[in-house]
């Protein structure tokens, strides 16, 4: 909402306040002033000129040499290129030395050899937005009325000596979508009165009802009123009205249309003017549209309607889409003589739906959507009659033709001062509360410890006690609210076990050298299920903004790989990232997807680079696995986790493992497939993803102290010749199972494949630790246990080297 202060002054006294100060007060009391706009923009030396003569420029087709009087006896030659400049016009002249918006400075100049002492201006050159400049002047200079006095301040005349406040209105404050609404707000803040327009006009002996009948066939329209005005003279509106409209962001058209727009801005009540003769019938029927019914709206677009759209018809065909836009067939034109003024109350939900469906938002629909003041509908019609008489010479027919079922009673709110103070944590006196409510012009009575308040219908947002709490608090001043902390509660705060473990999981990742990344949850169809543990129904947006962000991911790896690629493309020689985030599984039409929290990592390029010591290590599978293992170790799950060779699309078939917890798959780890690496321009890259929920929710034993061993352990090494394809993990498991309870640990300490081995064989060396916490082991005990291991290995076909 753009509020011209010149206009606002008609209703409330603000002369004693600088615009900035007024804006600050309004903002601090509840309506945010987004901008304070000085419409003169510091312009100087802009005066009224009289074009004495106009001649073609001798050396330029499109230029005219004008003699312009810019003060008594002060005639100057000005070159003007506007197509519409003509002798006898009163125009706006920027004299040499003038500064115009956009840093333009006017100087004496020669144009194609002819001297020019200034510039004849268009409204755009004075900083007015092209879209609000009247069509007649959109492509040329602006022409002032004949009575403008040459040499006088042109800015004053066209209303640019004004400041506009741009209000950022929240949806509840639709009352401030009108000048009167803003006036009430300002009056409440400043403890002022509101000067309402006085409505007076004469009527003819003819009756409106003899010209038009109104029938309403839809509940979405509880009030429809029509007034008829004859013999209007279509013309330009007076300058003040045009410039009020432009300041409010509305383009002036002609006096009739401008009057409806003026009242829309003044009262917040949209009106519509029909050309009575163009209506063709003498009735107005409000009804729901027929499915597929068509209407050409004022913007010359053909609109196809649905059965729930509310339309105004002449009894036969639609002449307007209710509350949204009029029809071209009944438009007021320069030939119009009799107009029908519509003032109606259309239900917000209906207008909202229609304007949304048609993609047609107007100043009118914006107000109906939020609910107009029921008590201003008929008032606005009266105001229109008055202005049509005053400004368009119309003759107002007697009476208003109306169908009126609208409830106009004010909302009553009963609230106790104690409740207000209890909610605020304050001690505001009853007197102060009454004073504030009076400033708001609410009808209030204090009785039996309660405030009985009848809220004017312009404030549709106030319905309950808490609304009154807010009104009192905001006008008393939020700064006056003290600072306390909540008391009387019995809750111990803290992280849940899951949340605490999740932080620990992050610590492990970061301790291992990984940065935490946060990537988008929305991805493309192509990436949504890539690397996902298993195929599950996906979650897709109904109306994505792009294909790239159209579906929720089922694996964290794709975006991590993209991020690695991004960093490598920017010359990062080492990328190590992890992410914690949800994946979205098994969406159905009715139910939410299952959100499973995962943790994933990507490592690429150098891992260790101690350059001067000559130590370098590029990432490999076992770096990635080592990080995963430390996570499991920290979570106390090492013993319960196993790895088995796996195939995952997009990963290296020989370097991929499934991760199992208690035999259930909880994750994967692997090298990025060379084809993928090529696609993303990555060198060696390894990824892992684990179902974080599964591993954090796995129950683990409490820590119970075990005595520090007092007896030495004994180690025995075994080197085995195995098939290349035999996993060392399987052999470890065989050893572990065979080694009796004395076997405490099995470690791989050497793996060899190469020249000294047969092609499909490898050598793996294990170190076995035997230990008895009770006493020193005897050789015999160790030998016995070790024999069992060797036997089991032999049975498994593992040959001791």
């Amino acid at each position, binding site marked *: 909402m753009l509020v011209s202060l010149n206009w606002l002054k008609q209703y409330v006294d603000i002369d004693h306040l600088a615009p900035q100060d007024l804006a600050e007060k309004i903002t601090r009391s509840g309506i945010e002033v987004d901008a304070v706009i000085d419409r003169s923009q510091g312009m100087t030396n802009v005066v009224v000129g009289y074009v004495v003569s106009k001649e073609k420029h001798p050396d330029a087709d499109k230029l005219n040499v004008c003699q312009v009087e810019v003060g008594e006896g002060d005639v100057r030659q000005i070159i003007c290129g506007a197509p519409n400049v003509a002798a006898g016009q009163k125009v706006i002249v920027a004299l040499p030395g003038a500064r115009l918006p956009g840093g333009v400075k006017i100087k004496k100049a020669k144009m194609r050899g002819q001297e020019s002492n200034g510039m004849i201006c268009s409204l755009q050159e004075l900083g007015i937005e092209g879209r609000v400049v009247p069509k007649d002047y959109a492509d040329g200079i602006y022409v002032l009325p004949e009575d403008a006095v040459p040499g006088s301040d042109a800015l004053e005349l066209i209303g640019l000596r004004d400041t506009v406040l741009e209000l950022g209105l*929240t949806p509840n404050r639709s009352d401030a979508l009108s000048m009167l609404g803003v006036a009430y707000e300002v009056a409440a803040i400043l403890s002022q009165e509101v000067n309402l327009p006085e409505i007076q006009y004469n009527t003819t002996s003819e009756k409106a009802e003899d010209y038009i009948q109104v029938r309403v066939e839809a509940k979405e329209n509880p009030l429809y009123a029509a007034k008829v005005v004859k013999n209007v003279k279509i013309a330009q509106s007076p300058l003040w009205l045009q410039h009020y409209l432009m300041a409010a962001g509305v383009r002036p058209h002609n006096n009739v249309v401008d009057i409806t727009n003026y009242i829309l801005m003044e009262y917040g009540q949209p009106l519509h003017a029909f050309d009575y003769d163009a209506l063709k019938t003498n009735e107005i029927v409000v009804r729901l549209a027929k499915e597929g019914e068509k209407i050409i709206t004022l913007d010359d677009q053909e609109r196809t309607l649905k059965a729930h759209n509310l339309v105004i018809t002449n009894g036969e065909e639609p002449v307007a889409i209710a509350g949204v836009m009029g029809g071209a067939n009944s438009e007021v034109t320069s030939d119009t003589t009799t107009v029908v003024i519509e003032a109606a109350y259309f239900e917000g939900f209906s207008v909202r739906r229609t304007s949304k469906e048609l993609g047609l938002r107007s100043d009118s629909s914006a107000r109906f959507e*939020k609910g107009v003041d029921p008590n201003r509908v008929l008032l606005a019609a009266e105001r229109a009659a008055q202005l049509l008489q005053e400004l368009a010479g119309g003759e107002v027919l007697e009476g208003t033709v109306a169908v009126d079922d609208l409830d106009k009673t004010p909302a009553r709110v009963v609230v106790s001062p104690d409740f207000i103070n209890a909610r605020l944590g304050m001690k505001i006196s009853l007197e102060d509360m009454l004073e504030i409510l009076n400033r708001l012009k609410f009808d209030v009575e204090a009785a039996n410890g309660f405030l009985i308040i009848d809220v004017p219908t312009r404030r549709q947002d106030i319905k309950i006690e808490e609304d009154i709490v807010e009104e009192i608090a905001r006008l008393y001043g939020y700064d006056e609210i003290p600072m306390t*902390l909540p008391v009387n509660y019995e*809750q111990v705060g803290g992280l849940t076990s899951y949340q605490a473990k999740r932080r620990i999981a992050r610590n492990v990742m970061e301790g291992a050298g990984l940065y*935490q*990344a946060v990537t988008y949850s*929305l991805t493309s169809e192509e990436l949504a299920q890539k690397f996902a543990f298993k195929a599950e129904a996906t979650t897709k*947006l109904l109306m994505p903004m792009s294909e790239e962000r159209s579906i929720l991911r089922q694996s964290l790896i794709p975006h991590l790989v993209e991020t690695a690629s991004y960093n490598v493309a920017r010359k990062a020689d080492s990328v190590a990232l992890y992410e914690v985030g949800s994946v979205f599984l098994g969406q159905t039409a009715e139910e939410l997807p299952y959100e499973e929290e995962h943790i994933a990592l990507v490592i690429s390029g150098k891992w260790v680079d101690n350059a001067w010591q000559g130590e370098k290590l590029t990432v490999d599978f076992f770096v990635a696995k080592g990080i995963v293992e430390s996570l499991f170790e920290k979570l106390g799950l090492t013993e319960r986790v196993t790895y088995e060779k796996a195939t995952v699309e997009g990963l290296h078939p020989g370097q991929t493992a499934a991760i199992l917890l208690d035999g259930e798959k909880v994750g994967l780890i692997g090298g990025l497939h060379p084809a993928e690496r090529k696609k993303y321009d990555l060198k060696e890259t390894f990824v892992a993803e684990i179902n974080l929920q599964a591993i954090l929710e796995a129950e683990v034993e409490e820590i119970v102290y075990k005595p520090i061993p007092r007896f030495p352990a004994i180690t025995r090494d075994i080197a085995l010749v195995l098939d290349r394809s035999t996993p060392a993990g399987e052999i470890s498991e065989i050893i572990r199972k065979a080694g009796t309870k004395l076997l405490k640990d099995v470690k791989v300490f050497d793996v060899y494949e190469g020249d000294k081995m047969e092609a499909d064989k490898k050598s793996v060396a294990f170190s076995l630790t035997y230990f008895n916490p009770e006493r020193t082991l005897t050789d015999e005990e160790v030998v016995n246990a070790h024999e069992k291991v060797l036997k089991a290995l032999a049975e498994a076909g593992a040959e001791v080297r």
Partner: protein
Amino acid sequence: MEQQLKQLEQEALAKIQAASNLKELNDVRVAYLGKKGPITDLLKGMGKLSPEERPKMGALVNAVRENVTAQLEEKAAVLEEQAIQEQLEKESIDVTLPGRKVRQGNRHPLTRVIEEIEDLFISMGYEIAEGPEVEKDYYNFEALNLPKGHPARDMQDTFYITEEILLRTHTSPVQARTMLAKKGEPFRIICPGKVFRRDNDDATHSHQFMQIEGLVVGEDIRMSDLKGTLDALAKKMFGAEREIRLRPSFFPFTEPSVEVDVSCHKCGGSGCNVCKHTGWIEILGGGMVHPNVLEMGGYDSKKFSGFAFGIGAERIAMLKYGVDDIRHFYTNDNRFLAQFHRTEGV
């Protein structure tokens, strides 16, 4: 024999002096005092001497041996010291060369901000609640006093999955879920999480961002409690000297509603680019829980009241660290992430 002994002594002492390292010195010891050395030989030959000469010679040989031994030890000490010096010399390094890097990662700046806020509220007795990112329209809007067709729904452009399912536009649905779960008991929670809006990504908009919601429900919860709580938050995040101010605002799920400004941490309130020369920076919105929301959550709004607030983690991080483009948080450039490694302040 005595002469022979003197000569041996002279020889030995000369060789001891000449020895340049411990091995040479040891060779001297073995050569003269060893089992097969000349002095031992002399001692062995004492049997041939007369009983009168024997003690005299014995004393003499012992004296020589003691002298040589003493000299050996003295020289050994010198040589050992010398050897240590040599070793130290050899082992000297350039201590200004860089150490072996221990890889260290760090938290994302958004997580950092969120955890800082979580920890503050935990210290004030809050629990951390979480909820799904894909939500029902009911929890995201309807249970928060935003029925279908409500104009305020336009404040949040929404990604819909079906007509009834959507990507949550704020963390507030966790409010509704928590109230139902707490079944009428007073509680205080904060809920951090990802939220989504139908926005084009640019320097100040992101279709995905992080919000932190706070909600306290109890008997006699006052607006002053909200103000005091947010003051503590502002001081924690932006410094103990910060002040807050509340401005009236509107959210469908709170009444009264507030926007909260914090005094500018860059200029202290005198006006600068960061605060657009106002001295204040808008950081969050909140208010007293709307009675309709309490009732839908199963709380008697006559008996219970509450306050709620919502913070954008990105906004806090951008202000706190001076980040100028919200997209940095989701691009994950190494050169960006690495900047949030260390501790700050005292």
